[in-house]
């Protein structure tokens, strides 16, 4: 039986991510507090997701038409001005309010009182993968968290999963057109070993063959780099799939090594792998995680 082409996110996607972030916070000492906070963020995302239905939906025919023609039905380019981001943001901030510490409270206030134009500018930056102005960068991941809730909510309203993306578009998300954050190698009995790219925005997963570069689709010069600790043990269940043809990498996470992993959470926790690869300098990162924005 063929593995499914596209897997849409479950309705507890943020709850699972939150659990994982809290677990990783205990395992990765150097990022402990950061991961614990991001765990709170994911918990607030879950609460916001459970609160209510989307206040805006595309026409049902628009979904069907897009799905029929293999276009992302919830394209970030087409919908960024239509989705009611303000109310999504406020619902998320309300949910986060209960858990946020003193150090991060100013970020919540900054977002609450941000002029609309400025907020729209940051939304554009986030959806375009730009680092945004330095003075707003601390608030951007919280805005990104609200965008993730908004798009997961929309994806859960799709009448059907998108079809397998066609050749030209199979390295971007078939639901929303955003780039992937990482690959996950599944461990389900029905499609064990199959690789799925996971969208950094809407958490849709889509199939791509193993041992193929997710950027240039070449297969000849791939290497899988990972970090070992001082005792020679593998660290997190995260490897970098590096391509010698286009000199880029995307993290790949085999569930066989750790069934509890989450693409967004484990990507944040394995920052040391990015730093090591950046120091080495041979490969550029192609994965986009809007919960960690780094400028030049």
């Amino acid at each position, binding site marked *: 039986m063929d*593995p499914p082409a596209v897997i849409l996110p479950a309705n507890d996607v943020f709850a699972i991510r939150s659990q994982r972030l809290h677990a990783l916070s205990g395992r990765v000492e150097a990022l402990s507090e950061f991961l614990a906070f991001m765990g709170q963020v994911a918990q607030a995302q879950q609460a916001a997701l459970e609160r209510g239905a989307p206040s805006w939906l595309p026409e049902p025919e628009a979904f069907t038409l897009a799905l029929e023609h293999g276009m992302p039905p919830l394209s970030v380019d087409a919908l960024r001005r239509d989705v009611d981001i303000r109310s999504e943001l406020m619902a998320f901030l309300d949910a986060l309010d209960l858990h946020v510490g003193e150090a991060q409270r100013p970020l919540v206030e900054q977002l609450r009182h941000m002029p609309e134009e400025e907020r729209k500018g940051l939304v554009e930056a986030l959806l375009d993968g730009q680092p945004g102005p330095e003075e707003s960068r*601390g608030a951007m991941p919280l805005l990104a968290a609200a965008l993730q809730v908004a798009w997961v909510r929309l994806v859960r309203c799709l009448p059907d999963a998108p079809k397998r993306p066609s050749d030209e578009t199979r390295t971007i998300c078939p639901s929303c057109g955003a780039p992937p954050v990482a690959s996950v190698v599944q461990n389900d009995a029905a499609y064990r070993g199959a*690789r799925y790219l996971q969208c950094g925005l809407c958490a849709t997963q889509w199939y791509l063959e193993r041992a193929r570069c997710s950027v240039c689709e070449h*297969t000849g010069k791939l290497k899988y780099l990972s970090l070992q600790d001082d005792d020679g043990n593998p660290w997190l269940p995260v490897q970098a799939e590096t391509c010698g043809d286009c000199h880029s990498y995307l993290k790949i996470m085999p569930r066989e090594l750790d069934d509890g992993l989450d693409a967004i959470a484990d990507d944040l926790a394995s920052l040391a792998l990015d730093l090591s690869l*950046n120091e080495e300098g041979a490969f550029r990162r192609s994965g986009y995680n809007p919960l960690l924005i780094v400028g030049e």
Partner: protein
Amino acid sequence: MTLRVTRRQFFKLGAAGMATSSMAMMGFAPEPAVASVRHFKLTGAKITRNNCTYCSVGCGLLLYSRGDESINNIDDIYHVEGDPDHPVSRGSLCPKGAGVLDFIKSRSRLSHPMVREPGSNEWKRISWDEALDRIARRMKDDRDANFVSEDENGNTVNHWLTAGFLAASASSNETGYLTHKVVRSLGMLAFDNQARV
């Protein structure tokens, strides 16, 4: 080679950018993460697609190997699993295929040509060139001696009936085509592909 880099962009996650990263701006010191890199070592592995050699089903395999050819290490295959993307086997392997790592690493595995001369009970190692020359010589001699160019009714034929050919199991369609072209054009009629072990 043209690279098809689609709508993808690249992100710089380096130590230099961490001070102005969102993490730092949110109040979480990035220094421990930057410093932690020193405690790790970057190691590499390769994954290579191949076909199982055992039978004509030709299940897909992923071979994991360590070692970096650029620094003169010999690649060491350390893990084999079914290829989940293979359209026939979809990641599954039979017990023989699943144990192929032992076959790859077997100490009795033949890794070079050997010959046992007529009348001798001893195997001796020879080079590939020598082996191919000997095989070609014997095939040519046998064909020259026994080739049939006309059958009993006077029809022109291309028949070499004193030799046969057994081809390997996990061959692709292309290999099968080439095998057929080479063997049949020599006139061999006795010809089979090993379909099972």
